[in-house]
């Protein structure tokens, strides 16, 4: 019940975790963000999709890591001190998925008014973009966590 309530807040004027990839600001609904972790040693998973960098040990749990730069077709950059993992916890009908995304830098928590958001132009950055929001003079790209971490074809496929 609790999680249901949390996930339905996605469309409401909400709070988003803001982070940077290259020059753009992105946002993930704060409701799905479990924690932010420093970069951890990644173990490659041969045969996984190219945008999956591998798995990490997050306090004893093996958690897949998505490389957002690779997912959005951006060029790879070397890790910096600010590179970190945004760990998300997504409740689905089939169970809970915990996965992390590598981002260049976490900026701040953004409060976004739903009235300022607009759907993405067709085909923009694939289907992972939920909407675009105007925040002051910035445009924030709000991501659809389910599509980023689970994919368009829904949950499934555990190892």
């Amino acid at each position: 019940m609790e999680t249901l309530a949390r996930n339905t807040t996605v469309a409401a004027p909400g709070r988003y975790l803001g982070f940077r990839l290259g020059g753009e600001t992105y946002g993930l609904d704060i409701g799905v963000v479990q924690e932010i972790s420093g970069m951890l040693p990644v173990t490659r998973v041969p045969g996984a999709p190219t945008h999956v960098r591998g798995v990490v040990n997050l306090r004893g749990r093996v958690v897949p890591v998505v490389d957002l730069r690779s997912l959005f077709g951006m060029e790879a950059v070397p890790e910096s001190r600010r590179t970190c993992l945004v760990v998300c916890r997504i409740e689905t009908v089939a169970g809970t998925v915990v996965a992390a995304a590598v981002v260049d830098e976490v900026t701040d928590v953004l409060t976004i008014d739903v009235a300022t958001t607009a759907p993405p132009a067709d085909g923009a950055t694939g289907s992972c973009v939920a909407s675009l929001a105007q925040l002051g003079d910035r445009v924030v790209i709000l991501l659809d966590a389910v599509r980023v971490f689970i994919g368009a074809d829904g949950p499934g496929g555990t190892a």
Partner: protein
Amino acid sequence: MTASLDKSAAADGFRTRWRRELAPLDGMVLTAAANPAADDLDDLLCLFHDLGCEADAAGDPEVAARAREVQDVLLDEGLSAGVDRILDATDWILHRLAPARATGAPGAASDRTFDIDLRSLDPETLRDFLEEADELLPEAEARLLALEQAPNEPSSLHAAFRAFHTLKGVAGFAGLAPVQALAHAAEHHLDRARRGEIVLTGDELNPALAATDALKRLVADVVLGLRGDGWLHVPGEVPTLAACLAPPAPTGGLVMLARGKERRRDAAIPATASAPIAAPPRAVQREAVRVSADRLDLLVDTIGELVITEAMIRRHFAPQQLPVEQQRNLERLGKLGRELQRIGLDVRLVPVRPVFQKMTRLVRDLAQKSGRDVELRTSGEETELDRSVVDLLTDPLIHLLRNAVDHGIEPDPATRVASGKPARATIGLRAYHEGGSIVLEVEDDGRGLDRAAILDKAIRRGLLPPGAQPATHEIHDLIFLPGFSTATQVTEVSGRGVGLDVVRRNLEELRGGMEIASEPGRGCRFRFRLPLTLAVIDGLLLGVGAETYIVPTLAVLRIVRPEPADIVRPFDADELLRLDGELIPLLRLRERFGIGAAVAGPARPVVLVIEGDGCRIGLVADELFGQQQVVIKGFDRPAGGVPGIAGGTILADGNVALILDAPGLVRSVRAHGERARAIPAGA
């Protein structure tokens, strides 16, 4: 003051009791209307007459009037013609008798299909009901099956009776009238046995078992309803559910009949009937504590973390760097961690009993259906296994037992007697510990495997060259080949082979091994060995390039470091390793995992011969680091579900290593090999 209190208490008692009496009525009236019998009418008349009198006494003239109206309808129009009006009146009365909180769902009460708005019920009581049902129904079933061996044996009979009775109570408490009605009917059936009116065996036992099944379905529907739209849908099936209780005698509508008679006895003792209902939680006190599986997993995970952290600290300091006391403390910390890990895994162990109980029922039903006289003897129900293993065990056992009953046992008892065996066949189902693993056996005293027929079939299907003389165990292995199962002729001639590839597949998932022993004419025994737990395995650490992988030790048959000359590469095909006169396809992990030549491989790599799906392949790795116990950790999308990878684990240095899926790798090599071979074969 006292008088008015008494009066309201009496009214409450009246309402509660009649709610219980009338709740099952819908289904029973419908059954009786479809299958009229004179007794039913009398019973209904009595019921509504009593209701009318008691309603007057309890100060509810409207209910009394409605009850008399029903009597009039019954007398004037009869059951079949007046069924709609009777049901309407009953609904109205039930609604009237409903406690205050249920008034929100009048639509539900008037809906004749027994649909119940689960959200209108108290969630706490509903949860209690589900938990109780989870234990009571298997208990009832087990006791009923025990009764078949010892008909009307008092302790089993009482226990089964109590289980249904308690279920009836909690269902009534939760407001689940269909469950309550069915449990009541089952309870009543058992009560007849308690009074010695019937002997619970065979046909008399069937209705009770059928009721147990129907109750299980209802409980499952409640769970589905809670997850779904919040309604329990029982669309028009309740009459047949009730009917399933009727022994197959020519008196249709027997539930109604039996129920009405019983009611007359119950009416005299309402106080004792309602007392246990108020106290079901105490009635089923246990020494165990119920813990959710998630919390248990979390506990085991956290312990695993502790052990890893300890190992990391240890790596950081050379022991001699530390004062003696700290060295000792560190030592102790490590020991405690390992102890905790062992306890944590122990906690997840559950006995195989529930699975065995399910099998007892299955064999009974199968035997009855196929007209064979079979007894299932189980032993070692106390043997404990990891929860996850127990779940995966059910399917293979079902397949093996079905095979044993359908094909292993002679269809005609005369054949058995002629060959000096008792007419009644015995199937043994056993579980026991042996050297760190669990062994399960399914043994029948039937015909045994017909080796000649299997061999013949294999040769005709091109699985073996003509004139092949394979060893006995190789012939037995043939029945596990996928597709062999559909070979109807073998099934008819020799039996066995239905879905046995599924058995093998499941056992591989459990990382277990299987042996078959069969003696023609004397019987057949399947024996499989399973690890105690799926959470921890013994693994071999492999170095491939700069990466570390783990292969489950159980999957590895041999480890060799072959001479380069023993590796051959036939034109246009996979590399093969020549080992003791056998050619084994090789899978180079460097290539498979896309590891470039940046790290040079050794001149003589190590080869691990693994087995899966009955085939062998050799995994080529750079280095073998050793063996250790690893805790398996699955991971989700997007990295999960990759072929050849079974999961991950955390090494002592805190990094993740991937665990290889041996059967998956074998299958991929075989698929590749078959594609390669298909070309010359088609040309």
